[in-house]
């Protein structure tokens, strides 16, 4: 019975509800991305000048960190989806190890981003400085909060793996959290080139 449910609900992975949330998040960010693009068109010089004040290196490092973290999450998901009745303990432990790496990546991202914010705010830049920085702050702070939430979600899954809480036919919650994390990563992959690089 439970087996048939797992098979039936293989796609989309995780809980259906998370996909509604993911699509709403994507739409919200898309609106901000579009707003950025259209505003940029009428203030190209100001956008380009302001962009020079951003630290592209830290942005790039953060990109690598998030992509790597997603890889770790994929490995963690693989550990539980390939689990058999005999390997519950090992699979959970293996997943917890990968998750720990992913969480560490998330924390590293947050620390680097915080130092970037401190630097930006130290220069007296606020939401009202100009349109570029308004979008920069709205997008990155909003995304920062998502990374924070994503890390907390991963940590909760991590805690459950530590007590071998996932079963061969019960890892929906795991996939739900992982899907959210991938969304957070995906958003940054669009955000980084758009705000930091494209001139």
């Amino acid at each position: 019975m439970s087996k048939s449910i797992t098979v039936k609900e293989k796609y989309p992975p995780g809980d259906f509800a998370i996909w509604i949330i993911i699509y709403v998040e994507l739409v919200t960010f898309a609106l901000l991305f579009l707003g950025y693009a259209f505003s940029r068109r009428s203030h190209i010089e100001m956008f380009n000048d302001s962009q020079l004040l951003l630290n592209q290196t830290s942005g790039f490092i953060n990109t690598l960190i998030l992509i790597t973290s997603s890889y770790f999450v994929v490995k963690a998901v693989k550990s539980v989806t390939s689990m058999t009745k005999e390997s519950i303990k090992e699979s959970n432990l293996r997943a917890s190890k990968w998750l720990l790496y992913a969480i560490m990546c998330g924390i590293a991202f947050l620390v680097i981003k915080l130092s970037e914010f401190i630097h930006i705010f130290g220069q007296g830049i606020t939401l009202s400085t100009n349109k570029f920085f308004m979008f920069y702050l709205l997008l990155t702070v909003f995304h920062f909060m998502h990374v924070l939430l994503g890390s907390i979600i991963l940590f909760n899954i991590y805690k459950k793996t530590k007590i071998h809480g996932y079963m061969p036919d019960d890892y929906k919650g795991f996939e739900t959290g992982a899907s959210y994390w991938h969304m957070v990563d995906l958003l940054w992959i669009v955000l980084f080139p758009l705000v930091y690089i494209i001139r």
Partner: protein
Amino acid sequence: MKYTSQAVAKPYFIFALILLAGEILFGLLMGIQYIWGDFLFPLIPFNVLRMVHTNLLIVLLLFGFMGATYYLVPEETETELWSPKLAIITFWVFAAAGVATILGYLFVPYAELTELTFNNLLPTMGREFLEQPLPTKVGIVIVVLSYLLNVTMTVIKGRKTVITTVLLTGLLGLAVFFLFAFYVPDNLIMDKFFWWFTVHLWVEATWELILGAILAFVLIKVTGVDREHIDKWLYLIIAMTMVSGILGTGHHFFYMGAPEYWLWIGSISSAVEPLPFLLMILFAFTMARDRKIKHDNEMALTWAKGTAVMGFIGAGVWGFFHTLAPVNMFTHGTQLTAAHGHLSFYGAYVMIIFTMISYAMPILRGRPHGNCKKAQKVELASFWIMNIGMVGLTLALSAAGIVQILDQRVGTELIGFMESQESIAGIYMIRAGFGVLVFAGLLTYFYSFFVKEEPQQA
């Protein structure tokens, strides 16, 4: 009725319905004043009617929420109410204070009322929707606190469910955000900020939690769908409500002297605000489709579905029309705003109270299977009459708003306010007509309470 203390909900429901009748009646009088400006002059001026109309709405919704809570919480927590006596005392205190305040509005000039009620000690009066004299405001706080205490103590001693948690969160928010009504900064822009912290965070954040919880409760009862299933939907709806609703406050900060970034924050987050309402439609209809029981009280489910649909249209669609900053620049404060206000309050909040009353009242009156078929037929008729009336009224107000925008805001040949109002007079007639229809619907609804039970039904 599973718990005897649920009976305290009954007076709350009845009084909410009486206030609703009053609210619509005063709305009708205003509708007539839009056509004949001298109507009731100098007895009751427009501004007083408007104040009574909107204040009655707020108070009737509070009574409705309280009644719904007192009915729902014992069943959810599986225990009697902490203090039914307190609930009854609160009812009488609140009812007396409410009636006294409305009479004060009607019979004492507002300026005099401010002097009589110590507004000079702590000036809080004179702001739209929060016109209540200081003693009334303090009374509201006391009533809400004792109500919260009663509900919280009940929840603490009983079973904890997602519905009660969401409901309590909403009620707590309702109480906390009302406190901003006591703070009136001298700076007009700051004043607006704090005013919206009460008004917006009530109707577009915390009240939506209350709405979601009541809807979920009724759906569990009339569809028999598993609680886990309902809970998940509820979580999803409230998560989305909170995220979009809190930042959505920004759509009130356009062009009022607030920084420009609010144009973006307000526009984008409030563009997402209709989604929780869309989810409510999916929620109600999916639950109805997957229902495990067929409850004899079919009207409760009809109202529940109606709430989701009308809430989405009124709050979601009509809100979205003018929530984007570039559009709002032209539409702000026109009859389009009134159109949105009417259908959203009716669709989301008045209808959820109808939903709850339709479900609970027959049980409170000793009819666990709902009213008899004939009474339900009458109620169904009232459902359609009121809904058609409200939609017609909203469309008329929207048309009036559009004419107003074209007359006064778009292009170069603009005309004055009174001239524009004159050009809308015909539409105001239609609006008043639909208003009468809504009132007729409400009377039909009242009549459904008095339809005699068919003997074979028992």
